[in-house]
């Protein structure tokens, strides 16, 4: 949602003492200092970047040749930290083995007129929306180093070259390292014109370099928000009203006052209560024993059946927001020789990040500081300031590596507000709030629930003449950014179903096409969940295309190729998986294949799944071949890792994932009731990364969407069963009789 600010070379080139001084806190994170032992504050001494002046907001070169690259987006496992650093290092022409990274803070960004642009890390936008201004940051710094060398050697700047952190003048044989030249380069004027490298000339970007952040994840030294230590730190556990929209009526603090370690019991907002104690285990144990009375409010009787009925009514409602309309669907349907209709549904999902929500806050009447894993530091700062009752300039957020994000830690910072509210009740004392897994499951921002009715009209020859796709269900924007809904239309609902465009164009050519949405918003808080609405849109479309193929007696690949004739990039990824998977050739005995393709988050993706179904109904997903065309591939190995990982997320939802409600409460409170894909379920993923150039697409999310429909189509091939309501665990599979 946040557009990045344009790169401002005037600002970037200006050495800033203020900025430098402000840098010290984030430096602690990147410099490998354990936050547990080094609590960053504004009063502390500079660390990683130290007293070395910056070349610009993105680049600091230290005398010992260390290159510090600043990363505004968050690292949550998706590899953005490494990929963005590669792009800057590429333009800088530095020695990759000397690169370190650090996070600027949201407060610094605010103080420097948002010189780092957006901090938002979601929508697979980390690289594709910041590559331009970050590469320019690297290129500007390189130009200043060249200018400094040329001035020193009294030669024209056009005669000096760079490579591996060295500036050279071939004619005189002179050379100087970036570390030697940096101090002089800082005073150079940034060039007005910059030409970025052609990606075909990349030497660092585009290569499968290892991640920069692996070491600390091998020996337990990587600090996550949950691991923070600081002097005088207290710990808090919290319970919010288990019924959405309910309130806290009363609690009896005296009942737990004598429990070990308990310091305070705090009402948080109007719906939650927290216990603060020396340790988190003490806080949690005391909270479990705390007598609490809830006012369950208007949703106390709500359940999943009511929500399903509400959505079902939307499938045939006369009013709906139109996402795409081609031709005249009603007329074409009326004239169709044959009609096919099917209704699908996709349930609520929880993000279930491995690290539950947590934040550490310290509040005084003058200042509020928050340490938290967040996908959007600036949004966290805004939430902290509001909860603190202080202007943002008197607040700061220090980002910590995330133990998973997947969208939960991006748009809404409910846990930050809670942590600040608790800290506000204990001025001057740092308090770490950790959600229990149960709290995390009951108070998610859930992947929205939808149903979808698809109707196809075929002519006498079996050609698809008309398609109506009616989506009924929840709008994420209505729940989070209602100001972005225009004329009742939530554009995010139509991910992958757009008429053209660069984000998610619907690839199939259908002469008469209507895609519309009847918005139905149950009182369950929705959120952006990795892959967002592309996930179920791909299931609906790609399963139904298979249904049409079956009805028309066509091979699913043949039909897709016909309908994608005008969409060469969609077709290319589909053909790539079909070829590698051996579509049309005999599969191993008892194995069946299924296909899916879609465009989302600016990239083209396709998958071919190969499954078997045993006599007892056990499904085995043997392999999935996946292809991605992201335009440019900044780190092919990280893309492969994202594709593999995305399938775990997509298949977890398809196989098991379902959040249901009873008596106004979420029924799944931990991993035993919300199972996810484990090692034993995991197929071998064969990833094809096929960047065709000319555009920048995301990679963290798009392939999630094709995992489930490819598997569902393979299941149909294996069993003849068309699974239309997920998860799969609701169904008993029966293999076809051979």
């Amino acid at each position, binding site marked *: 949602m946040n557009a990045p600010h344009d790169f401002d070379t005037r600002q970037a080139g200006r050495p800033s003492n203020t900025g430098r001084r402000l840098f010290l806190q984030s430096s602690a994170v990147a410099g490998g200092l354990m936050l547990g032992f080094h609590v960053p504050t504004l009063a502390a001494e500079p660390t990683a970047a130290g007293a070395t002046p910056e070349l610009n907001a993105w680049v600091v070169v230290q005398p010992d040749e260390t290159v510090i690259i600043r990363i505004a987006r968050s690292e949550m496992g998706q590899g953005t930290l490494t990929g963005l650093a590669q792009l800057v290092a590429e333009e800088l022409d530095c020695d*990759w083995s000397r690169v370190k990274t650090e996070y600027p803070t949201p407060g610094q960004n605010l103080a420097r007129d948002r010189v780092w642009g957006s901090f938002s890390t979601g929508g697979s936008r980390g690289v594709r929306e910041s590559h331009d201004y970050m590469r320019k940051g690297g290129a500007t710094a390189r130009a200043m180093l060249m200018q400094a060398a040329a001035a020193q050697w009294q030669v024209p700047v056009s005669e000096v070259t760079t490579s591996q952190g060295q500036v050279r003048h071939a004619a005189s044989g002179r050379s100087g390292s970036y570390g030697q030249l940096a101090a002089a380069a800082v005073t150079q004027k940034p060039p007005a014109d910059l030409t970025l490298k052609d990606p075909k000339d990349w030497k660092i970007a585009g290569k499968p370099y*290892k991640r920069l952040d*692996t070491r600390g994840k*091998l*020996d337990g030294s990587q600090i996550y928000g*949950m691991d923070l230590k600081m002097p005088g730190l207290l710990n808090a556990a919290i319970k919010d009203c288990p019924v959405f929209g309910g309130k806290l009526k009363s609690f009896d603090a005296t009942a737990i006052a004598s429990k070990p370690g308990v310091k305070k019991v705090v009402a948080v907002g109007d719906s939650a209560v927290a216990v603060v104690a020396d340790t988190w285990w003490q806080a949690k144990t005391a909270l479990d024993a705390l007598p609490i009375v809830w006012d369950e409010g208007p949703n106390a009787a709500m359940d999943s059946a009511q929500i399903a009925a509400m959505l079902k009514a939307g499938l045939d409602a006369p009013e709906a927001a139109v996402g795409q309309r081609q031709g005249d669907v009603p007329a074409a349907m009326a004239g169709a020789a044959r009609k096919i209709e099917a209704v699908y549904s996709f349930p609520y999902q929880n993000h279930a990040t*491995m690290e539950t929500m947590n934040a550490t806050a310290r509040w005084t009447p003058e200042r509020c500081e928050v340490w938290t894993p967040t996908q959007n530091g600036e949004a966290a700062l805004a939430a902290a300031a509001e909860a603190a009752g202080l202007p943002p300039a008197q607040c700061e957020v220090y980002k910590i590596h995330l133990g998973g994000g997947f969208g939960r830690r991006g748009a809404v910072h409910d846990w930050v507000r809670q942590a600040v509210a608790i800290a506000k009740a204990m001025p001057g004392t740092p308090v770490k709030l950790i959600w229990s897994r149960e709290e995390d499951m009951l108070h998610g921002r859930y992947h929205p629930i939808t149903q979808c009715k698809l109707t196809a009209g075929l002519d006498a020859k079996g050609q698809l003449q008309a398609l109506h796709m009616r989506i009924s269900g929840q709008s994420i924007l209505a729940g989070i950014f209602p100001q972005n809904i225009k004329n009742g239309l939530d554009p995010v609902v139509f991910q992958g179903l757009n008429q053209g465009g660069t984000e998610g164009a619907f690839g199939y050519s259908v002469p008469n096409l209507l895609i519309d949405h009847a918005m139905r918003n149950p009182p369950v808080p929705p959120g952006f969940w990795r892959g967002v609405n592309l996930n179920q849109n791909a299931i609906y479309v790609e399963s139904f295309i298979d249904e049409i193929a079956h009805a028309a007696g066509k091979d699913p690949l043949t039909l897709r190729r016909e309908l994608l004739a005008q969409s060469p990039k969609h077709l290319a990824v589909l053909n790539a998986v079909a070829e590698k998977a051996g579509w049309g050739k005999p599969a191993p005995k008892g194995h069946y294949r299924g296909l899916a393709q879609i465009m989302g988050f600016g990239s083209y993706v396709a998958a071919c799944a190969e499954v078997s179904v045993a006599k007892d109904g056990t499904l085995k997903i043997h392999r999935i071949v996946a292809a991605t065309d992201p335009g440019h591939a900044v780190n092919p*190995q990280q893309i492969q890792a994202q594709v593999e990982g995305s399938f775990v997320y997509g298949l977890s939802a398809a196989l098991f994932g379902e959040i249901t409600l009873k008596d106004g409460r979420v029924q799944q409170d931990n991993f035993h009731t919300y199972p*996810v894909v484990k*090692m034993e379920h995991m197929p071998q993923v064969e990833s094809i990364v096929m960047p065709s150039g000319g555009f920048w697409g995301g990679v963290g999310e798009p392939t999630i969407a094709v995992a489930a429909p490819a598997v569902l189509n393979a299941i149909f091939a294996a069993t003849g069963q068309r699974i239309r309501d997920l998860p799969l665990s609701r169904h008993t599979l029966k293999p076809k009789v051979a």
Partner: protein
Amino acid sequence: MAQLQVNGKTVEVDADGDTPLLWALREQLGLTGTKYGCGLAQCGACTVHLNGEAVRSCVRPLSSVAPTDRITTIEGLSKDASHPVQKAWAALDVPQCGFCQSGMIMAAAALLKDKPKPTDADIDSAMTNICRCGTYNRVRAAIHLAAGQVNRKSIAIRLLDPNGSEA
């Protein structure tokens, strides 16, 4: 006050006997490499070694741990991340967010001690840890690599070291 042997040292822990070993490690001893994920032994993020065996420390009350029991956490698995499992993990760039990886590595190390040449089925049954980022393919490959069942070149994951050489 309980006495424990953790990573080769005898330590005193000031916590109630019903405190899970996980929280004593994290909050009393400051060993935060062992993670809280579920509290119900469902996810394995809290896996440590108890006398060489992988256990889920979130459901192990301190009262059930004897002073003579040897506890090893991720911090004590090796010096400088030099355990074969850690080296294989580094070779294949296994972690993504990394939160589950301490538990994964501890479970894998215990598996290899028990079964030096594990089959895929052995891995499926021993490695029941949850990873939401989806590192399972690489975890499996790294276990086989650590076991010496495959060589690095046969694994279709091309990576470069920071100096640009093939990893």
